[in-house]
């Protein structure tokens, strides 16, 4: 079902041209600019595949191309991540039922060398961190190539309909979606930034003094990006938790639900149970209510709410119960979620018998935390350390966000889970620092780095910064 009325977003205006796609041969209405899975969901199709071994139904989970839960056959091509692939008129989409059988008559393909892009700085990820890095690296004089595997820039920002906190310089009081627009405009203004969308980085490699980022554009073309420095700003991925039937369609990451309703105007479901009362879970609750979806409850395993007080108060005012010291035991349903069973837990996280509650819901939203997306950094050999305060495994880096490999920088959520505000500041620092390390920026830019570092320090001096600082102590080196 599509949202027609929304207090903040006007989807009628935003939707592209109407096209028709086919699911198992049946025509489905879709709009240009939306991904396949969004169009399917709008048409009520939630089961996208069945697993090969156990025949379990599969549905959307992360909506950012990372979990592989949405693989389908598109125009005869198997294993397409339908959450980051845009619809095209006449597209044929089918469920994958078995491992593929290959044709015996195939001909060897002709070998062609890939397209080559040369830049001073290659930035992977076009969220707030990557965008700010691009803007500042470019202003410092660098030629920038920016790639993102999603079809639009903005990263997580494009789903944030609420107004941001923080300082005015970092867009406090502005809605996340709007910040994404502003940053995108700034990037477009700069001629020495080249943007590559729908382009996944599949490898980060060192060739003597240059860094090579191997990208795949639109699932089909290989592109080689070379630069003197690389900034990894690949964001985060959602955590999973173990409970019975935790693989049923209708169990979505919080981010995926935001993508559905806030980016594409698709109603995620009718009745939702949210797991996790951090900021993400709380914000999600009122965004859902805004979109006309009923939120049955928020379940939180800790004895107290993790998110900001204002967010919690707002959610409570809207009548959503927050059950602390509770966890989910089980999802039930045949092909998709029909209900959820939760229970109270004791200090040792053990469920207390007799405390089970049943919620009749068709969506379970997991907002149990994010973890940094460090795959590229890990793969290239940057040193990794476990810092739970920053969301898990992160890379060791210095104050200018240079990792243990010279010329490779990190910024934003991929450096440690924080906020868009800090991601932007880190992006700025990494962008300038990379331009300096590439020998392009003049030393005056050091002042801008110091300014941003001071702003970061101020931002982290609040009560919520304490945890982050503790994490940073473990991983920031001189």
């Amino acid at each position: 079902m599509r949202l027609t009325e929304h207090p903040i977003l006007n989807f009628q205006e935003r939707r592209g041209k109407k096209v028709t796609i086919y699911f198992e041969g049946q025509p489905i209405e879709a709009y240009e600019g939306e991904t396949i899975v969004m169009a399917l969901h709008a048409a009520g199709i939630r089961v996208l595949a069945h697993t090969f071994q156990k025949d379990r139904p599969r549905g959307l989970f992360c909506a950012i191309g990372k979990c592989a839960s949405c693989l389908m056959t598109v125009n005869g091509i198997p294993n397409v991540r339908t959450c980051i692939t845009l619809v095209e008129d006449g597209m044929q989409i089918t469920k994958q039922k078995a491992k593929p059988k290959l044709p015996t008559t195939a001909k060897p393909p002709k070998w062609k060398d890939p397209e080559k892009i040369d830049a001073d700085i290659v930035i992977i990820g076009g969220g707030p961190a990557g965008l700010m890095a691009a803007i500042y690296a470019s202003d410092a004089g660098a030629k920038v190539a920016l790639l993102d595997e999603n079809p639009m820039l903005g990263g997580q920002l494009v789903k944030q309909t609420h107004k941001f906190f923080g300082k005015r310089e970092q867009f406090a009081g502005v809605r996340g979606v709007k910040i994404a627009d502003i940053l995108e405009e700034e990037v477009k203004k700069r001629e020495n930034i080249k943007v590559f969308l729908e382009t996944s980085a599949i490898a980060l490699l060192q060739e003597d003094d240059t860094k090579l980022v191997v990208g795949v554009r639109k699932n089909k073309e290989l592109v080689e990006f070379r630069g003197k420095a690389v900034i990894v700003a690949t964001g985060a991925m959602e955590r999973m938790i173990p409970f019975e039937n935790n693989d049923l369609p209708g169990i979505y990451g919080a981010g995926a639900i935001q993508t559905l309703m806030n980016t594409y105007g698709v109603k995620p479901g009718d009745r939702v149970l949210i797991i996790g009362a951090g900021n993400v879970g709380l914000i999600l609750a009122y965004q859902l209510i805004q979109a006309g979806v009923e939120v049955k409850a928020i379940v939180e395993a800790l004895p107290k709410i993790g998110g900001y007080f204002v967010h919690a108060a707002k959610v409570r005012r809207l009548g959503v119960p927050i059950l602390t010291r509770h966890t989910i035991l089980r999802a039930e349903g045949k092909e998709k979620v029909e209900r959820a069973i939760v229970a109270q837990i004791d200090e040792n996280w053990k469920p207390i018998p007799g405390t089970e509650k049943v919620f009749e819901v068709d969506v379970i939203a997991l907002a149990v935390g994010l973890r940094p997306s460090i795959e590229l950094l890990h793969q290239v050999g940057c040193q990794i350390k476990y810092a739970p305060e920053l969301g898990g495994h992160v890379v060791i880096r210095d104050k200018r966000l240079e990792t243990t490999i010279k010329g490779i920088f990190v910024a934003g959520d991929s450096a440690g889970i924080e906020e868009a505000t800090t991601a932007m500041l880190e992006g700025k620092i990494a962008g300038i620092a990379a331009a300096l390390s590439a020998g392009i920026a003049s030393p005056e830019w050091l002042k801008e780095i110091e300014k941003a570092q001071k702003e970061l320090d101020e931002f982290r001096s609040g009560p919520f910064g304490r945890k982050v600082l503790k994490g940073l102590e473990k991983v920031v080196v001189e």
Partner: protein
Amino acid sequence: MINLDKIDPEKTFICGCDVTLKDILDVLDEGITDLEIIKRLTRVGMGFCQGRYCIVTAAQVISAKTGKDMKEIKLPTSRIPIKPVKIKVIANE
């Protein structure tokens, strides 16, 4: 922290590629507690998501069951290509 009590391990999935909590617990019961080996015996982390979602959950199960601190459990290295890539694409057909 995670809860592993009062749930049916055969119906609880650690990995989207059909690896259940039971699969992991069975290997742990044999006295094998190394994530690197559990990965290879159960195939957790060896499928299409390349371990992005499942490997940490598996590590948490090991931590919960053995008392090993999470910081002691080394994540298996990510390998190129970090997204599954079609052979035809490498060939640029």
